């Protein structure tokens, strides 16, 4: 099961006015866990006002750089990204799950491929990792990057991309499309929509030569580019997507009433019967499922999916009430009889009596 590991923040570099690049160091023994594939992301967790937020950010380093770096752009009203941009400093510790994601294709050192990448704003982070890695590890492949931004000042990794273009002369082509700054060529001004794609593919990019396309950006941009690529003959398997952080709810929202209740009101005394043995413990009404609380109290409660799907963690409420967040397993009549999925269950009364044995 995926778990969180501490990462030491070694460096916080300001990339643009509202974006930072973090360099992270795994602890001794965890380096293997954080070995990544180009294009993968890290999922971080942090509590804001007592509510845990999880946020995923793409790795922007190539596989040959010997460093773990992520880029975080501040999202308006986003608790995590604002904190990372304004308060995070070297020496701090972040908690992250091992790298995940399948936004990549296998490296073939002998291959001579043409990759086409589309990045919108901070969607550049995984694409930077991919292009650095494939250009270094596939010496015969080339990469065309179409990179959309509002204006020049908001372009992340602008200098690094320029340097890469010089390092990989003739193998890396970059097209900057700027929304609100006029450029010499009309084609490079405005938003990337269906019309812009059609023009780019007619005048600038030969889609027929493309082996794989990578798209990372905001939702509307992903939709129009994908539709356009399909129209130009690319198959589903040739188009790889990464939806970036705008799809995530940004604000940390504490559940209603959580701040107004006193500490004792926020607690529940739970009595759990399992395999004939009964134990009583206290748990918070919020933030921790009944199953997790039972496990934390050394009870060997049954579970498998922890997602409200498999019904392994089913138990019956004998006294008190609890709220079930998700239920994809129990039938209506079981719910009426008082059965709950303990992995999805949060007490709402001050006492709760449940049994796994019924």
């Amino acid at each position: 099961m995926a778990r969180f590991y501490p990462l030491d923040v070694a460096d916080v570099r300001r990339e643009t006015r509202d974006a930072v690049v973090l360099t992270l160091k795994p602890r001794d023994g965890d380096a293997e866990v954080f070995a990544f594939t180009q294009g993968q992301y890290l999922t971080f967790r942090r509590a804001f006002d007592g509510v845990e937020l999880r946020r995923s950010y793409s790795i922007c380093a190539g596989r040959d750089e010997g460093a773990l770096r992520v880029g975080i752009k501040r999202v308006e009203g986003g608790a995590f990204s604002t904190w990372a941009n304004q308060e995070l400093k070297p020496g701090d510790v972040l908690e992250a799950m091992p790298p995940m994601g399948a936004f990549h294709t296998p490296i073939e050192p002998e291959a001579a491929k043409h990759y086409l990448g589309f990045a919108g704003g901070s969607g550049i982070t995984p694409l930077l990792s991919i292009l650095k890695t494939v250009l270094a590890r596939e010496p015969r492949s080339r990469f065309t990057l179409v990179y959309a931004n509002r204006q020049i000042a908001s372009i992340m990794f602008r200098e690094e991309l320029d340097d890469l273009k010089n390092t990989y002369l003739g193998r890396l082509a970059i097209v900057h499309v700027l929304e609100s700054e006029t450029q010499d060529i009309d084609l490079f001004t405005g938003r990337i929509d269906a019309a812009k794609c059609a023009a780019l593919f007619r005048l600038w990019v030969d889609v027929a030569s493309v082996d794989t396309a990578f798209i990372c950006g905001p939702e509307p941009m992903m939709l129009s580019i994908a539709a356009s690529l399909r129209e130009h003959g690319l198959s589903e398997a040739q188009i790889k997507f990464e939806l970036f952080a705008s799809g995530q709810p940004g604000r940390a929202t504490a559940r209603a009433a959580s701040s107004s209740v006193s500490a004792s009101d926020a607690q529940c005394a739970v009595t759990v019967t399992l395999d004939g043995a009964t134990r009583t413990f206290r748990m918070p009404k919020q933030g921790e499922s009944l199953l997790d609380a039972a496990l934390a109290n050394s009870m060997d409660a049954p579970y498998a999916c922890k997602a409200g799907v498999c019904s392994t963690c089913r138990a019956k409420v004998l006294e008190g009430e609890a709220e079930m967040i998700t239920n994809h397993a129990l039938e209506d009549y079981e719910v009426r009889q008082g059965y709950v999925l303990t992995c999805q269950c949060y007490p709402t009364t001050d006492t709760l009596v449940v049994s796994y044995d019924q």
Partner: protein
Amino acid sequence: MSETMTIDDYLAQGGVLTNPSNAPPRYRGELLRLMATFVDSELAGSAGFAEVINDAPSLKARIAASRIVLEKTDHAERVLDLMGTFGADTARYAVHHPWAARLARDAEIGAARHGADRRLSVFHYPLQGWIDAVVMNVLMGRAVGIQLQEFSRLSYAPLAEVFREIAPREARHAELGEEGLARIVATEGGREAAQRSVDFWRPRVAASFGREDSPRFDTLRRFGLRRRTNHEQVTAWMAEMAARLPAFGLA
């Protein structure tokens, strides 16, 4: 790019999600349900098939059956690994249910779920020997093909990719079944036994496509997790069976 849209609109327009943190809660629930059904069916299917390896009439047949058991388990693992990225405890999940357990041959379960796992109802029926297993594999193999065609286009990109990878191997399992069936129907006794198995399995495999009026379908379609209705899928499967079975002297 300041332009944004809600995840629901994005999905309704054919958008693709790429990691667990993109997925809204309801979507996540439906997706996990779909994944659990696939994993449980593959594990239950391969566990049932494992028991008939010893009934295989030749070394080639034994190898084919073993390969099917091995690869279906591998396919389950790939999808279970994705469930792990949503927080499922994969090590525990894989060994938790008695995958080889079956109900009686004459149990009346229709399309209903049974017990604590989420396998398709058809995987609750026991196989009766080699011929029965081969026939079940031929019928179910094509049903899986139709399902995977659907799943290969679903809106959770990492899962669609896994399904695109395993679809050709699952198709090969159905072909192996058909090669075995061709040998079985070479004798009249074999053909008659195969016909009895077709009569048993056909309505049960058809039921595994789910209810015609599934209330969940609209939600799944809005989420980009389904395109064709249960009815469209089962109709496609019945047409495929009607076209294929006569070649084996079966109806």
